[in-house]
């Protein structure tokens, strides 16, 4: 199967209020250029927003920056968008975070960001080390109809 990189973007954003909207708009534009449906673009934008909020609220990083990379590729049977959201903060334990998670559908006021990311995206992989930062890699697919 032929895979062609069609769109790539890298952003470094300051951790200021609402900066997640800039990240979401950027990936939304890239995904629309890849021909993705509105619903899948919206899901991706919501996932990026939650990843950026987690970085801003919980990373405790000294440089106050979020590093984003978006890669859109076309494949024979559709397209995919890869998203990396990185911070240089304290890291966290994803399993511990998941263990605090409630069952989907039960009301819970905080701590649902990671769950929303995992339910909105097709693949999610988290690389994190204590005081070594965190990278959330997310993938969204769109098959040709």
């Amino acid at each position, binding site marked *: 199967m032929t895979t062609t990189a069609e769109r790539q973007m890298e952003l470094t954003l300051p951790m*200021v*209020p*609402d*900066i*997640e*909207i*800039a990240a*979401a708009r950027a990936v939304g534009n890239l995904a629309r250029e890849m021909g993705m449906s509105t*619903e899948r673009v*919206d*899901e991706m*934008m*919501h996932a990026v*927003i*939650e990843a950026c*909020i987690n970085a801003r609220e919980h990373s405790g990083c000294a440089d106050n920056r979020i590093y984003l990379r978006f890669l859109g590729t076309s494949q024979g049977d559709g397209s995919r968008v890869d998203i990396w959201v990185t911070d240089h903060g304290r890291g966290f334990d994803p399993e511990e975070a998941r263990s605090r998670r*409630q069952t*989907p*559908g*039960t*009301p*819970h*006021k*905080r701590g*649902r*960001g990671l*769950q*929303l990311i995992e*339910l*909105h995206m097709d693949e999610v992989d988290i690389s994190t080390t204590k005081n070594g930062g965190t990278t959330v890699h997310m993938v969204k697919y769109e098959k040709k109809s």
Partner: protein
Amino acid sequence: MTEELKVAVERKPHGAVLYTKGYINNVGGEEIANRAYELMDDGVRTLLLNLRETKIVNSIGISILIEIIEKMMDQGGKIAFCCLTPVIHKTFQIMGLANYASIFDSEEAAAKELGL
């Protein structure tokens, strides 16, 4: 960079409708809460949130919406939502909000069911 949420209120004979426009984050959620609590203090017990012009919510904003629902339920009232995008609808279900507030496709359907 700021994304200010605008909230408009329309009083109805038997309740009120809140119209939101923009991003529901922590600040937007607080703005909705302030308007909702003013209405509750004024005796409103049926509240419909029309999110037709809101395309993005975050988990912090939703947590504030859950607080509004809980406060209204404590007072014996009810809150419903209408005109959600498919992704916001899905997000509300994940967050558990859909268990405590009805969700309608249109304002007309909501108003009829709620008796606004």
